[in-house]
């Protein structure tokens, strides 16, 4: 059953209380939020299989600690999308702010356009949980810092410029980052990462998630996959070994 909530004029606490009360009805499996203007913490800690359609701009920490819900934003999202998220899906039909997917352990985040600084810091995977972030446009500095697992894909679709900033993958010790470009200036990379040509497994992984990305935003998958990708990977799972005198 679908429920519609008008967020106009509501403080985040009131809006989230309404959402919470609506979800007490077991029959609800979809909630449409109208006129969202930056209310924070939507779907925070939600561990139900429900679908959210957000019309407007989602506020900070959208889907923080979320475990299993699906969120579609028709608009932009602010900072902290999918913070420490466990599973589920967040699709942003626009751009998103800083610190996307911080400490994320599972689930997928698709952002049609650009994302800000510090995306995917300390993402980690565990068993069946495998976090994925796909960004259609560009991402800011510190992408994938301390990354410990999962995948980040940056497509740079809307400009010819390099779609990542400085210090990519600093302190990275697991997972992989794919950037749709022919080459990258090594000076932009953290000292713990190296570049690599793609294997068949890499390509399969990319097509899977880029396939979903294209489906959500009605884009042509073939064109995107036609071009080169660079893979960044951590060359040591122990970047901080041998630091100590025992």
């Amino acid at each position, binding site marked *: 059953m679908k429920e519609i909530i008008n967020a106009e004029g509501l403080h985040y606490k009131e809006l*989230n209380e309404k959402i919470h009360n609506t979800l007490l009805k077991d029959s609800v499996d979809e909630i449409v939020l109208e006129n969202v203007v930056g209310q*924070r*913490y939507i779907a925070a800690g939600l561990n139900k299989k429900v679908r959210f359609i957000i019309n407007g701009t989602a506020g900070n920490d959208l889907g923080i*600690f979320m475990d299993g819900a699906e969120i579609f934003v028709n608009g932009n999202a602010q900072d902290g999308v999918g913070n420490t998220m466990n599973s589920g899906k967040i699709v942003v039909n626009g751009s998103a702010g800083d610190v996307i997917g911080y*400490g994320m352990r599972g689930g997928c985040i698709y952002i049609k356009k650009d994302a800000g600084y510090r995306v995917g810091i300390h993402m*980690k995977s565990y068993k069946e949980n495998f976090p994925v972030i796909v960004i259609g446009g560009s991402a800011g500095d510190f992408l994938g810092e301390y990354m*410990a697992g999962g995948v980040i894909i940056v497509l740079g679709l809307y400009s010819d410029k390099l779609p990542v900033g400085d210090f990519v993958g600093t302190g990275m010790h697991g997972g992989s980052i794919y950037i749709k470009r022919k080459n990258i200036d090594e000076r932009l990379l953290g000292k713990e990462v190296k570049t690599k040509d793609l294997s068949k497994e890499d390509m399969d992984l990319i097509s899977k998630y880029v396939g979903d990305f294209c489906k959500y935003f009605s884009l042509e998958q073939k064109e995107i996959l036609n071009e080169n990708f660079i893979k960044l990977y951590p060359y040591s*799972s122990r970047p901080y070994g041998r630091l100590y005198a025992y």
Partner: protein
Amino acid sequence: MAKSKYKTDFRVIRDQEKCIKCQACVRMCSNDVHYYDPETDSIILQEEKCVGCHFCEDLCPTGAITVKREIPEIKFNQHWDSKDVYNIIKQAETGGVLLTGMGSDKKFKEYFDHIVLNASQVTNPSIDPLREPMELRTFIGRKPDNINDELPPQLVLETPIMFTAMSYGSISLNAQKSLAKAAFEFGTMWNTGEGGLHQELLPYAKNVIVQVASGRFGVDIDYLENAAAVEIKIGQGAKPGIGGHLPGEKVDQEISKTRRIPIGTDALSPAPHHDIYSIEDLKQLIFAIKEATRYKKPVGVKIAAVHNVAPIASGIVRAGADFVVIDGIRGGTGAAPTVIRDNVGIPIELAVAVVDQRLREEGIRNQASLIASGGFRSSADVIKAIALGADAVYIGTAALISLGCHLCQKCYTGKCNWGIATQDPYLTKRLNPEIGAKRSYNLLRAWSLEIKEMLGGMGINAIESLRGNREQLRGVGLTEIELKLLGIKHAGEAW
């Protein structure tokens, strides 16, 4: 240059008359100090490997072993200590950062030892806690501005002493289980640290404070919902400003499950939370946790005591924290660079006094409880911290000592003979959680009784009335500025 032999820090003396060659020491010492030579039928020693944990001494059935401190000698020097010299030698050989465990053992002024308590004489009667009710019950959480306003969620403690954050990983599951059970039975709290909540400890969840730290290990909605309260860890006294690092070799199957990371990977906690670069960001995380847990439990913030501790604490309270934990320079750790542990931060006595004072001046003291921690050695330290303004204290090192720890400071090696700071099943099984729970419970009981005695002597019948009651304290041998910061008078000054 010849590679130096490490000098021995301990003499292990075996009384040959008493030794029955049972070889228990040979089998049990995880540092392989004792070694049996079948050819000569004798037990040989490699004393340079001894860490001074005194386990074999306790273990030896005939009491044949004595472990003595042996300070490697250098020519007498007021400035250079032999420790400095041998540390440099070690670093010259390895090029590495010196690591250590537990709280700082450096010679700082012990303010607690320069503070004395009051007692009633003639003008007001003292109270006998054995015959009259004495209230130690403590409420942790935000108190409303007006008496008629609704009371926000509170933790209820039967004593103002809780067990501090020690993660599964830094200590063994048996050690955590001991403390969890003791806290549960006594009616106080224990803290998961940044290591997740192990399945087997769910029965003690009613009494658990869970930590959310920069690595977000083990943090998910179930973890937050299971807890009595949530603590955002910004820093700790033993290593302010630096992150944590559980080496991959310690991440075994059970730890992997609890932290929710693959076996064998390094568990790195970044120095800051990268979603917190300001008080506003902190507020955002506090309220994210409150939203996710539907405003049902207190959310607090732990910081290390640093120079700016008072204004920072004020910011934390204004950001919506229901309790603030301040960890002083003596705060313990499973592993920290020695140079950081011994040189960064300020003593807890000063920190708690200035924070309490600042929050009072700003009229926001009611908005958050204040929890002090960092090397509390006795009930006297606890009661003095409370009179200086703390609502409750956390103990860590003292709790581990009750489980057997002898402060060898080698926790980072993972070879703790007492089964505490180790994950080796051969060692951890030495710590029976039932006995551990009993012993740490006893510690809580003993200190609580002593606190009641001291309160009674002051003519006070509830710990509430001692909170921030600095008139009950006097300084001995403190300078004017120290007295001013502590907010106490010098001994000899009347009211």
